[in-house]
């Protein structure tokens, strides 16, 4: 019974994931389990395969072997329509925000609502857009273009777009990169707030120690494509292992 509960709480399970680009092996037998209402931070150096990992999870890259089970379904076996249904339950915050330059903030937020084959009325869409913008305290930017916003505001709008479909899993790709420390801290607080408010599970790719410290329930250190170490932040900072220590110095 306890085993069953344990399994039911897993929203994402990665087993023996391998991915190489030519001779460059980026992920090598990588394993991970993400539970409901849990934030895992994957910590690694630049070029260690962190972004490749979440792009494999969302289906933007195809792994060479292994399995990625999302809500107990192997995403690698799904057709386009089934994958789209799974993607509707996953939010993805891109490192570059990936806001559509040619659209207003409103259109950016409406885009996923209109595209996922879910029928919402115009009133519902309007309410959801306003709610998502209110969650990130940027309701007043609704008719602005992304180019008119600061870096921090763009990150928040991207986060609002990620949240609009009420995802059960959120994948964050370097959420604080390129932001000043204060804005970075605001984004981290927002991530924690979202987890608490919506009970989401999050996989956060980062090399920002502040992000690890404040946003993680668990930390995975990705080294040479493998899960080198894992544990709570408080445990890992006390590690005597030189390779682990270098991340926290």
């Amino acid at each position, binding site marked *: 019974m306890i085993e069953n509960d344990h399994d039911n709480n897993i929203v994402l399970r990665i087993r023996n994931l391998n991915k190489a680009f030519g001779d460059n092996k980026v992920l090598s037998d990588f394993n991970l389990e993400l539970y409901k209402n849990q934030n895992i931070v994957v910590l690694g150096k630049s070029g260690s395969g962190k972004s490749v990992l979440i792009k494999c999870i969302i289906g*933007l890259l195809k792994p060479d072997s292994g399995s990625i089970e999302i809500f107990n379904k192997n995403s690698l076996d799904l057709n386009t329509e089934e994958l*789209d249904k799974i*993607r509707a339950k996953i939010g993805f915050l891109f490192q*570059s925000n990936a*806001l*559509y330059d040619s659209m207003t903030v409103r259109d950016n937020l409406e*885009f996923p609502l209109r595209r*996922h084959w879910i029928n919402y009325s115009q009133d519902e869409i309007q309410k959801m857009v306003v709610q998502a913008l209110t969650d990130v305290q940027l309701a007043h930017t609704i008719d602005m273009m992304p180019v008119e916003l600061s870096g921090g505001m763009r990150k928040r709008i991207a986060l609002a777009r990620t949240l609009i479909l009420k995802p059960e899993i959120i994948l964050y790709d370097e959420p604080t990169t390129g932001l000043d420390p204060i804005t970075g801290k605001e984004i981290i607080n927002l991530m924690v707030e979202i987890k608490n408010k919506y009970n989401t599970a999050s996989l956060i790719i980062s090399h920002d120690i502040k992000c690890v410290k404040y946003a993680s329930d668990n930390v995975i250190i990705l080294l040479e494509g493998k899960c080198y170490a894992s544990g709570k932040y408080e445990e890992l900072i006390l590690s005597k292992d030189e390779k682990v220590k270098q991340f926290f110095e």
Partner: protein
Amino acid sequence: MKNTSSINIFLKEVGDTSGFGWRFLTQWFRPRYEIKEFIKQCYIIGYKSLPLIGLTGFIMGLVLTMQLRPTMVDYGVESQIPAIVGIAIIREIGPVITALIFAGKIGSSIGAELGSMKVTEQIDAMEVSGTNPFKYLVVSRILATTFMLPILVILSDTISLYGAYLGVNIRNVTSFQLFWIQVFDSLSFNDVLPAFIKTYFFGFVVGLIGCYKGYNSNKGTEGVGKSANSAVVVSSVLIFIIDLLAVQITDLLGFN
């Protein structure tokens, strides 16, 4: 060794572009139909190109007539200027010049827009949002260029002939009615149809190359510039190659 490598790169590029074109041909008729985006692109690509196409068309007709006039006077066939200018514009100069200007304006803008979307992960974001970015971005744009260029060429040819009318009247007096009668008398179905059909291929090539270069852009902002530039260069060269093939085919079919 360097030559072999260049040939390999060239052949790979030809293969990849053909594969991209084949992907378009196998996807454009399948649902989901991006009609709204297609109409939006028709507006941007067609309507917004009209002032430039119109201006260049007018100047083209006017200058062609003025350049042609002294030689025609020397041969004593000045009265044939409307007929000759009409044939030249409808059969060759109108479609080719309009397509080249179109490649410069639209090919580069598609290359830069998609290139910028690619390097800023907007295309990935679309895919994550339940959208097939190839259909949404590429199919809609290629269809828009394919259908808009022929319309722009008809308008450009017409404006060009107005320019030619002005050119004739700078040194001479020809009535508006006589000018147009001479133009239409000199033209036959065989002049208009092949010229019109080839503009669809010109439009297709401009859209295809612009989308291919932008969609496969990399190396950050430098890559975006290169995509825009090579979209114009490659599509311009292909316009001339298609023109060459078109004239051979129409000749074989007895349209000349």
